[in-house]
């Protein structure tokens, strides 16, 4: 891995590599704080891990975006279940 994990610093990098009309950075933040309403509004139903693999690749902060998204999806399934 090229570099250590950091807080989110750079902005506007994820949108460039995501084909969907989403704001991935805000979606990730909503998942991190378990904000179910925001997650729904920002379109968590439209993505799975592979969709944001490129975001994870370009991420300057070297976060594990896919694991974070999976946590969010699991939470949604539990809440809806």
């Amino acid at each position, binding site marked *: 891995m090229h570099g*250590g994990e*950091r*807080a989110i*610093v750079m902005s*506007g990098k994820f949108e460039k590599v995501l084909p969907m009309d989403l704001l991935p*950075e805000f979606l990730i933040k909503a998942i991190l704080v378990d904000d179910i309403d925001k997650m729904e509004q920002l379109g968590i139903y439209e993505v799975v891990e592979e969709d944001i693999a490129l975001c994870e690749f370009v991420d300057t902060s070297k976060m594990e975006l896919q694991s974070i998204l999976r946590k969010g999806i699991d939470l949604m399934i539990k809440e809806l279940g």
Partner: protein
Amino acid sequence: MKALRKLLDNIKPHVSKGGRFEMLHSTYDAFETLLFVPDKTNQNGVHVRDAIDMKRTMIMVVLALVPALLFGIWNAGYQHFMVLGQEVGFWEQVLHGALKVVPIIVVSYGTGLAIEFAFAQMRGHEVNEGFLVSGMLIPLILPVDIPLWMVAVATAFAVIIGKEVFGGTGMNIWNPALLARAFLFFAYPADMSGDLVWISGLSGMEGLDATTGATALAAAVQGNIEQFSLWESFLGTIPGSIGETSTLAILIGGLMLIFTGVGSWKVMVSVFAGGYLMGLVFNMFGLNSMMQVDALHHLTLGGFAFGAVFMATDPVSATRTEAGKWIYGFLIGVFAILIRVFNPAYPEGMMLAILLMNTFAPLIDHFVVDAHIKRRLNRAVVKA
């Protein structure tokens, strides 16, 4: 390279868990990752990561600052000898400037990095790279005659109150470097404004003609802007803070930032557009001497260009949405000129404008995200 690796490997057992200097782990880690790529591999998720990381991002900004820094060093010497009326060679000017500027940089980095390392140690984190940039920005926005202890106090204030209380790099709401300047500006106004602080060696000689040391903005308030031609203020051979005078050197740095994708061109362009438009509007009225300053000239004066390229683009304190960046930058430009024109007591409007918009950046983002959510809701079709 091999010798370095060996040295680091020798130190490693002492700072790892259980070693004698375990508490210095973060410090060791910072130096190791500065010199070598970390040996951690990806555990899950994508197995290849892009080469860009925070260190590379931050070092790019520092490199972009180098033209402005070099020019500032020369200009400090040039202004000094010009006021004294002495003709000296190029290298003598550089030497004088370096003797003035380098200590400020050393103090700023020393204080800030010490605090940054201490906090990383306490939290058990890796050391954040953010201060590499702030530590370079702070000297560049200070007057050359600033006492060194003030640099230390301001840096400590900026790092602790501006950044660490919020949780470190990435969490701060204001740009730390600007906070340092604002702190000095309001705490020690005598050493941060007026006509004597901008040229080294001038504060000791009260007898000199006061107008010789005035910055272009102070002159513009009094209607003496003709002293500083557009070309002079673009090149930067005028009195002012160390790194902010040369618009040319700043633009070179700006191009580096845009080319590498580190700085947002949207913010830069919209700041200049906002400032230019506001300047034009004031030109139309032209009620006082500050309003009559040519719109293009406004952009080359004071810290406008420096703020637009290096301060406003700070991704942490700026807006995070792409649409928000246009609004954010535009308003910075507008407010900078507005404060400049209507508040002669604070000729440097750029600092206050950016801090103000830093405060409002989350609000802009909120509305942009809200609009985004509404647009998405409109698209959703419910089959009943």
